[in-house]
């Protein structure tokens, strides 16, 4: 992956400091503008004030759970794409997440390159949706 500036904001939400900081660094190095939040509550607040294009969200967090955080974010802006990170291995959980409307989900331990591609893909999808919405409104 190249290191050019991507000019769009990614919000990374994970309660694990080590993982969040390391991953934020990986994303910044590759030219993403990265915001971070250590809890679902903090994430919702950030989206309210400074909406990102894509959210990378850990499902298992103390306090506000990933799925609830997802719902709150979508209430604020339904076009924001969310990639869920999860350690839960059940297919039921996976189906539920996709049915809810997450853009994609990745199982931990994640493949960092895959995450980067997914973020770009989510951004592409968001732009397409925005365009479609504009055209529908015309």
């Amino acid at each position, binding site marked *: 992956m190249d290191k050019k500036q991507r000019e769009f904001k990614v919000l990374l939400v994970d309660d694990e400091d080590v993982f969040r900081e390391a991953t934020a660094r990986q994303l910044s190095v590759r030219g993403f503008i990265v915001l971070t939040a250590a809890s679902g509550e903090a994430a919702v607040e950030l989206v309210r004030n400074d909406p990102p294009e894509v959210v990378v969200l850990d499902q298992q967090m103390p306090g506000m759970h990933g799925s609830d955080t997802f719902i709150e974010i979508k209430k604020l802006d339904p076009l924001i794409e969310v990639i869920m990170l999860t350690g839960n291995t059940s297919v039921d959980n*996976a*189906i539920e997440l996709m049915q809810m409307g997450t853009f994609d989900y990745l199982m931990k331990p994640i493949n960092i390159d895959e995450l980067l591609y997914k973020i770009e*893909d989510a951004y592409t*999808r968001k732009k397409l949706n925005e365009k479609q919405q504009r055209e529908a409104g015309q």
Partner: protein
Amino acid sequence: MSTILGNLRQLFRDICGRNRADQPGNPTEMNALFRFRYTLFKELLVANSELLTVLSDMDEKLKGETVFGLSYITNQVNKSLRHAFQMVKSLNVMSGGKHRELYAALERINDRIKAIMAERRAEHAPRAAVPYEQILLADADWAGGKNANLGEIKNRLDIPVPEGFAITTKGFHDFFAYNDLKEEIIKQKNLIYINEFDLLSNLSAETLELVRSKPMPPELEREILAACEQLWGDDQSVLLAMRSSAVGEDGDISYAGQYLTLLGVTRAEICEAYKSIIASLYSARSISYRSSKGVYDEDLAMAVACLKMVDSRASGVLYTRHPYDITDEHILINAVWGLGPYAVDGVVTPDAYTVTKDADLVLLDKTVATKPVQLVLNRQGGVEERPVDAALQGAPCLTDDQIRTLAGYGAALEAHYKCPQDVEWALDQDDRLLLLQSRPLKIQSPKNFCLLKTAPLEGYRLIVDSGEIASQGVGRGSAVHVRSMEDLADFPEGGVLIARHSSPEYVIVMRHCGAIIVEAGSVSGHMAALAREFNVPTLICAQPVMELIPPGMEVTVDAYTGRVYEGTVTELLAAVKKEEAHMKGTPVYEQLQRIAKNVIPLNLVNPDAPEFTPAGCATLHDLARYCHEYSYKEMFQISDLASKFHGWSLKLDAPLPMDIHLIDLGNGLREGAMVKWNAVQVDEIVSAPFLALLRGMLNREVHGLEPRPVNFAGLLSVFREQTMAPGHVGERFGDRSYAIIADKYLNFSSRVGYHYSVIDAYCGDTVNKNYITFTFKGGAADDIRKNRRVRAISRILDREGFKVDVKADKVDARLQKYPKSYIESRMDILGRLLIFTRQLDMLMTTEQSVEWVAENFVAGNYKLTAPPVEA
């Protein structure tokens, strides 16, 4: 006149206006958009291959010959669900959620499987250390397959095995629970990136250290030492071989070598050795292997086999029948001096003994080889090579009595397991014969034994000698050629189906067909899976079998050696075993069978059938088939996006009568490819399917030197259509051709003149992933000519091996699951065809011209000089 003017104006507006409208923006955005779909498409293809592999493994287990427990089922179920989910997800993400109903279908299947799984739970181990006296086959869930097998041999068959005991999964769980380790390891693991090998290695090293640093639970240590004492009293000189016997793995092969085996372990070292072995579950290789295969850590547990090391005088392998000649039932034994690996690895030519399998156990043949060296145990517990005493080098390793005793063990094992066995044996220093391992003997495809292959049966004419085996067995019947689905309608009972290519649609005759022989396809494809399910012997032969085997010819298909004979080969038919294998009828087998009904059968065989819908998906295989089919369609449409991106792409610099613009999705161009004035040369292209297509397009013969003579009436028709038909004119006129490429992928859309064609192809080393879809539509001439042209093209494609469908002025052609070389040859043909068919309309003046054009093309005569005249 006003119509013509109006049309011209419209044409002008179309050409000028197209660039502006609908422009998604900059090159980065465009690349992202294409890559977006392509990445998902690749993910889908990978998941499809993985799922089919799991299905074929389950099929293999349903033969009932291999030992498995409930944890095997849990594992395979989880894997297949995960791969099916991945496919559903990829298709939905790439299509913007067009197939959401698939999630509901997957949920229904998942619920049914869960209900069956909930009926039985794996039994728990009675203790952490259990001697072999108390282990039987049914204990595989807590003892591990290897231990369960040794226990069965010792207790049910009374055949000597090395002394020892199993450390069961209870020991494993106790250790992790006592030290509160599982959560910690999973948490640590979730913090790393699976694709960063350094991180993975660090984690692996830390975990290994972590596990080793933790104390053994006192009760576990006491049990293990008590087991040693019970077997060997105070004798501290006994050395142990400690091997992992993992639970929940899908056979020895996939995990072979992943986990630690320790040899020469003393009693004092046993607990440390145990910790090292269970820690090897977290080696970097194992973690990434499990992650890629969809195996979850929570389903894992490891049992360990603790066996007294046998300081063997001689050892070797025993097959209870010939491994690839199904007419040879004799027991085969080979033997070397010292330890076994030299017999298996072929370092030393072993002695070879042949014994009959009847009650008399007659020694038929005894070939004694010269065995100059041997592998022996050294004092440190390792192994080393030593010379064999001169006097023993040419002597047989076993006496005749020993050979017969061993053969008797082999016969008993085969009778007990009800299938041929592959056995490892050893002769200890006290001249006692011991069995170290016994597993089902895979009757192998000759490809794996090319040098050892037995000669074809005498007295019969051999038609095919080396087909690939898609489904094992022997079948006989009269040949029936199947060229289209109509040929399946009155398929005779017991007929042998012969076709150019595999197709899951043959399922409708599988219940009553004797065997299947096709020229191309994949041994792990959909048809192969169905053939195994219906037990139809099936061969894939890269030979012109439709020419070699005329309709009506009686043939016998030996899908053990990959051979086809003319006539009825009674020896082969008599040799096919009828006995039910050992696992059949056990509760665990029945559970797998019930679950498999929700996983393996393929109901969606025909994409055009009304039930080819998400609601029609009753099994995971159906879901896979549906996703696979629609993913092609999604990729095919990628060319519609290409036309929206006039602004940015590279131009191909090639002597072709059309402009080709390139979009590289990744590795389609040579690394560091030279781009001058936004143009690239042909030799910078490395995309396999595109290179092959270009080879055809650039073929000198197709271009010729003289322009094709234009039939004047034809030209008039084209001109009239252009000017008189509003709404049709210039529909695609002036558009460019786009090649969206990657190393193994091509989407080529060509809108030249008044017609368009799209080729979508994947061309790599995995036969299962390879395909070509081709659509051709339109033309500038009147409907009759367009139709003639389309029929000419369809005839050509049909003769070149494509499956063709014609509707009005549109041809759809497709082929899939062929080796790379064949896909490339077809791409070459399509390349020629694209050039050849330019302005073909004008030559389509008569009905005869359809066949005339097709014949000439197939014959390689591209310079059409005189179209036939109407009769």
